[in-house]
């Protein structure tokens, strides 16, 4: 693992809370590592295991899914459904040898800009520590 390794991280954020939380981190000029690229979905419940697998297949070193806190989902319980799906996806990627620690689910509300920044920073550092998923992947 070289010092320069910069991981590729794909983020999925639900439109109503987490994407807004990420925006707030920006409006508050908080800083976090640039490795993450966020894809907006309407609800964390929209994130299908196929998206996660595709991301890893394309060379992502980590995937971060963020949704509203339990009880706050704009669609009542999409986030809880997501939690379930992520549970099984985590097992699946473990079996595939990707390692479950490369997939993380976090609840971030629209007011939690700083939490968003912290989560991204922490996750990026962890993945950096884990090293690249496949030898060829380089940031």
């Amino acid at each position, binding site marked *: 693992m070289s010092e320069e390794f910069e991981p590729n991280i*794909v983020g999925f954020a639900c439109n109503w809370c987490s994407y807004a939380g990420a*925006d707030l*981190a920006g409006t508050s000029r908080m800083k976090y590592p640039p490795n993450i690229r966020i894809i907006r979905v309407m609800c964390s419940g*929209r994130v299908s295991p196929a998206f996660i697998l595709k991301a890893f297949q394309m060379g992502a070193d980590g995937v971060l899914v963020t949704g509203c806190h339990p009880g706050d989902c704009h*669609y009542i319980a*999409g986030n809880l459904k997501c939690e379930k799906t992520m549970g099984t996806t985590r097992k699946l990627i473990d079996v595939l040898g990707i390692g479950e620690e490369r997939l993380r689910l976090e609840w971030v509300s629209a007011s939690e800009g700083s939490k968003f920044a912290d989560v991204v920073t922490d996750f990026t550092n962890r993945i950096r520590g884990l090293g690249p998923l496949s030898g060829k992947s380089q940031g």
Partner: protein
Amino acid sequence: METAEIRIGVYICHCGINIASTVDVDSVRDSISKLPNVIVSRDFKYMCSDPGQELVIKDIKEKGLNRIVVASCSPRMHEPTFRMTIQQAGLNPYCLEMANIREQCSWVHEDREYATEKAVKLVSAAVAKASLLEPLEEKEVEVRPEALVIGGGIAGIQASLDIADAGFKVYLVEREPSIGGHMAQLDKTFPTLDCSACILTPRMVEVERHPNIELLSYSEVIDVSGYIGNFHVKVRKKPRYIKMDKCTGCGMCAEACIMKGRIISEFDVGMGKRSVPYIPFPYAVPSKYTMDSENCLFITKGKCGKSPACKDACSSDAVDFEQKEEIVELDVGTIVVATGFDLFDAKEKPEYGYGLYDNVLSGLEFERLVSSSGPTQGKIIIGGKEPKNVVFVQCVGSRDKSVGNEYCSRVCCMYTAKQAHLVHEKLPDAKLTVFYMDIRAFGKGYEEFYDRVREEGVRYIRGNVSEIIKKGDRLLVMAEDTLLGEPVDIEADLVVLATGIVPRRDVKEVANLLKISQSPDGFFLEGHPKMRPVDTATDGIYLAGCAQGPKDIPDTVAQAKGAASSAMTKMARGKVKVEVTTASVDTFVCRGCGRCVEVCEYGAPNLEEVEPGILVSQINDSICKGCGACSVACPSGAISMKHFKNEQILSQIEAVI
């Protein structure tokens, strides 16, 4: 389907220096210009300014662009702006995609090289998705100018009057023979001590007289289908065995009935008696009699004396034992749910001896006892005597995990203070004690009222009553004064339990009927605890009063007005936009497993039998909110989400890495 060539225009905004100082805009523009389908790639100081928007319009017209990517601030900020821009140029508003290179790039990163690289990726992803975007038609459905209000307590009454006053037709469905709900049973109301009947009766009469309100009393909603704008509702009108058009409300039948005075009055919560034909209370609306079919000898046994005395007594020939239930079908645009609450059954707390001792009353029983329209004409008499010592016990069945109700009922602190005051007023020498856990006097004038009651000499002791037992013909109330840390014993002639508010017994059935949810406490769940307190997750269905959670009359009325106004907003416009980015099923791929039906919170998907034995899911796009849960759940991959299709998201993933 669009077969024309995809021609994309990409516009990268400097946002003054907000973006440009961290992101090398020129370099992004140049990288992007090399991507397939990109016809123009430009940068501009302020894209959202008029010249910025003009630029886009001009390019669309001159260069035949059909997909637009704007890389600038968050779409949460300017997506509506640019959608309008491209619409002006004749494009479908959904042919726009934005890349967030300000909030999620230039503002959060410092290293120019990394930020630029990231910006390129983000814009590439937007371009990739833009290539796959499809135009979507915005849809509106008509909203019928009629509303259904379920429940005729003060919440339902208020909502009906507001909606009807605005000129819309209201069907008010009330299960009991009369409207009025619990408020009709109360004596005076805290904190102002207005007499409940005095402020309620005029409103009830207004309902009856209102040309826009059709009151379906003694009726129940049995089926609801459709969606906002067009709900189809079936209502069962139970037989009263008395013709509404003939009955004058004279009460001769009740006088004549041989069962007179032998049936427990629900209105007086078991403390008074009535006849088989009855009106629940003197100022009932409608003021027509109803035959209590369960207790009528003629109805249950087929025979009552030689001929039923009630029928003989009625000079208008209104008694009609042939009457059958009737199903009425209604079409309405909106629905207000105002089904109210039930009182906690204090028998679930055996230590208080409710149901065992005649001098332990529930809060509601005490309201009847102290009311001048009640069984004792308002005299506080218990066991033939005026009580000398009265003890009130608060939080009975509320804030209590042992009975499964964790919430505060929000009215019992204040109604206890009110009841203590009423006893003091009528029996100035009586010793009054209130046992409480905490006092919640949060409303306007409430703390002042509580202070006033204490000044009147009511003793408040902090502590839960541990048990109430008999001592001679009195009661011994035992507790710990937790402020002093000492046990207290008080002998009482009357104990009043501040019984709490619980969800209606049939709350689950009503929730299923309307496809709305319940919160963990059992009451109906609002759309959002703060921002959408009168909405439900289902468009067009609104909540009012205690059906949504315990509340006092002022809050009930306020919420009812809110629900009415939400319903009216939709009806006044006559149309509502429905979500565009909905789910749709590929009926050839669907295998009818029903996972989507299970997973959807809104009841949008339905399995329909297209051929004998072949089920296929159909998603009603007027109901679908576009969350996407079903498309993830579908094992066959039959469901696609408009504007968030799998291919579109997968292309973004590919581009972003």
